[in-house]
């Protein structure tokens, strides 16, 4: 747990004291050009020219630093108010979007199931129930997005797409009613996924669409969740994802591309759902994700890029998943550090949860991997700074008028509202041994009422809703 220099009011202490934060951002120690327009125009010609990366980073650190300094200078009562999650405002913003979106949203006209999920899921995290009418209307709308041959598209009459399928299914699972769950045509969905399967083992996003790690995750996540995942869908996916792990340790969208937080989550989650987590170098992955949390307290998506609230989930959940994979991690560490054998030798081919040999029959109960994972206790505490992450989300991502954003200076949007809150949930529950245990006050930054509902981190749906769906689909 983080070391604190002074006693704090309930809700845990913000980890970075002002001198630490200020030191890295002290303008007098940098030759920052006043406008930041021209990195080459250093104030002092003897100091090295700052690069674009450095200038952009300094601007963000300065803004975030101002916010944190205001917090640290505040009295305990004010601190508590500043660290409050503005539930009512977020609920208002999210609920409004479900019934009305302005003309500027035409750029998301092919992403409407995503819009549903980006609102319905965070509302569920906030434990806000929807009207029956609204729920039924969402079910009806998504039914209109369901293609007659399987899968869900971005809107009525559009081509089915794996990402919008993921969003639609997750939305229906979050609604959780019998009507919602039975509206999914699983047989056709399976056929659609099989059509999207490429000979490499990976998946295309849509007919003739792009292949990448996102497609693998969205396919595997949905298939697992509605219990249609089998050997035919699973084969080759794990190896494809493993080929996307880079020299940095993170996972890229395609082989040889740059390690990236979004794809790292997608890759790792998919592997776990396939019971093939050992296919990637987990110590290397953990080491990469751990270093993506910066002085701003939030996560960046890639090395030397800027912090962004949405990575609170992509990176936060990725590293939180590893808390249940420590058996494999230890094995891999031992193999790479203390054995003088060439590292090409795979010492870790056993599966994750104490199962012995991997079954190669088509009778593998893939959906159970997702279930067993969440039933398993965390073997260790969080490997990231869970309180610092909450600090970033509460102080830098929240927008006063409701909704959450990438970073100060950016506008709120539903996507960031969804993923900032998902990341908040992950960090609140990360220190507990079991997925549904109630976090202790010291694990929740700000008032205890900030506590959100727990999620199933492999699918990113609220845990209760996952259990309802698991029971429903295991009968099918």
């Amino acid at each position, binding site marked *: 747990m983080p070391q604190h220099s002074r006693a704090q009011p309930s809700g845990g202490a913000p980890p970075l004291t002002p001198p630490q934060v200020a030191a890295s951002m002290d303008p007098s120690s940098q030759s920052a050009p006043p406008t930041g327009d021209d990195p080459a125009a250093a104030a002092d010609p003897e100091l090295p020219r700052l690069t674009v990366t450095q200038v952009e980073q300094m601007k963000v650190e300065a803004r975030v630093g101002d916010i944190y300094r205001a917090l640290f200078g505040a009295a305990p009562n004010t601190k508590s108010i500043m660290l409050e999650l503005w539930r009512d405002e977020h609920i208002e913003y999210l609920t409004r979007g479900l*019934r009305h979106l302005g003309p500027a949203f035409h750029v998301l006209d092919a992403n409407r199931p995503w819009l549903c999920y980006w609102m319905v899921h965070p509302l569920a995290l906030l434990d806000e129930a929807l009207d029956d009418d609204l729920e039924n209307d969402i079910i009806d709308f998504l039914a209109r997005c369901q293609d007659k041959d399987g899968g869900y598209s971005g809107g009525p009459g559009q081509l089915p797409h794996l990402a919008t399928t993921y969003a639609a299914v997750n939305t229906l699972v979050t609604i959780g009613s019998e009507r919602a769950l039975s509206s999914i045509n699983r047989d056709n969905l399976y056929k659609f996924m099989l059509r999207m399967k490429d000979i490499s083992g990976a998946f295309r*996003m849509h007919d003739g669409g792009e292949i990448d790690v996102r497609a693998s995750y969205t396919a595997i996540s949905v298939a697992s969740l509605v219990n249609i995942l089998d050997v035919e869908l699973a084969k080759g996916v794990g190896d494809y994802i493993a080929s996307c792990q880079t020299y940095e340790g993170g996972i890229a969208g395609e082989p040889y*591309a740059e390690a990236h937080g979004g794809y790292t989550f997608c890759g790792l989650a998919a592997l776990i759902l396939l019971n093939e987590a050992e296919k990637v170098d987990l110590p290397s992955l953990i080491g990469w994700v751990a270093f993506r949390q910066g002085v701003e307290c939030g996560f960046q998506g890639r090395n030397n890029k800027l912090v962004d609230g949405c990575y609170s989930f992509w990176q936060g959940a990725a590293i939180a998943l590893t808390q249940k994979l420590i058996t494999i991690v230890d094995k891999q560490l031992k193999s790479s550090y203390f054995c003088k054998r060439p590292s090409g030798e795979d010492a870790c081919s056993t599966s994750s949860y104490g199962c012995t040999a991997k079954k190669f029959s088509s009778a593998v109960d893939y959906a159970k991997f997702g279930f067993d994972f969440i039933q398993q206790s965390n073997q260790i505490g969080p490997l990231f700074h869970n309180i610092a992450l909450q600090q970033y989300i509460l102080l830098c991502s929240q927008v006063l008028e409701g909704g959450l954003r990438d970073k100060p200076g950016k506008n709120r949007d539903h996507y960031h509202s969804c993923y900032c809150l998902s990341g908040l949930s992950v960090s609140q529950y990360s220190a507990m041994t079991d997925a549904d245990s109630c976090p202790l006050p010291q694990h929740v930054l700000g008032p205890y009422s900030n506590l959100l509902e727990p999620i199933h981190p492999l699918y990113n749906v609220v845990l209760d809703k996952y259990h309802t769906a698991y029971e429903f689909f295991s009968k099918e």
Partner: protein
Amino acid sequence: MEHAKSGPSSWPELADVVPVPQDDGPSPVVPIAYRDDFREVMDYFRALYFTGERSPRALRLTTEAIELNPGNYTVWHFRRLILEALDFDLLEEMKFVGKIAECNPKNYQIWHHKRWLAEKLGPDIANNEHEFTMKILAIDAKNYHAWSHRQWVLQALGGWETELEYCNQLLKEDVFNNSAWNQRYFVITRSPLLGGLTVVRDSEVDYTIEAILANPQNESPWRYLKGLYKGENNLLVDDERISGVCFKVLKNDWTCVFALSFLLDLLCTGLQPSDELKSTLEPIRSSHPETADADPVTVVCCILQKCDPLRVNYWSWFKATLSQVS
């Protein structure tokens, strides 16, 4: 872009077409308040899409739809079917999509369309694609789609000759550009012209060490250095330049987290005790009396827990794990 005056409803070629409204149902959710021009174009698009018409007028409609919402992958997909059916001039098409891409450089569909076209056009289009990605990267040197496309073109259509030099140039402009480091790794490991990693490793180590010494707080070259010895940890430990750069950086600043972390890696992989190691750890031990008699791994772990407070959980776990597995 105003279309209402000259929208599809006014096109003579579409006079026989009955527009198809979107079926959002009686009680819509996430309803978008479409502007009239948008609604009109999409109603006509639906009409032709549902009948599967592959004609010049259908192509023209997809152009309108794409300009209004380049994220509509259904429109792009239908456009590809039309282009094939009409045996359309794909070079013209590449020019068209290039213009759209410049205004929407982070759109998946556009880059996928370019890849589809490039695959059909073959090696002759390689130069054009490299020029294009270079243009995009000049505006945003880390655009993920641009880098992916560039890598795909290199692997599928060639153009490797100048790529390492391009990486050099980008790193000269911004040595913190992690995408450029990643591309460098791609080039040295995958270029058919360089002979593979083992051939260039030596010079790459020197290049990377120089970059580290110039900016020890830049994480990119540290990770790159580790990557140069991926899968060959024993060689990593044996290369004295590697431990050398750690010692050099730490002599100057023993709180440098990347240097400490790298040293820890080396120690775990079998770096042998030496006078240099001892003298490097000396200022650390004297500032932290509790580590006076501890082994090097423990000393480094302890100092990391203090110097890198954001990762205190990670270093605590790592330290505990090392004492268990060793």
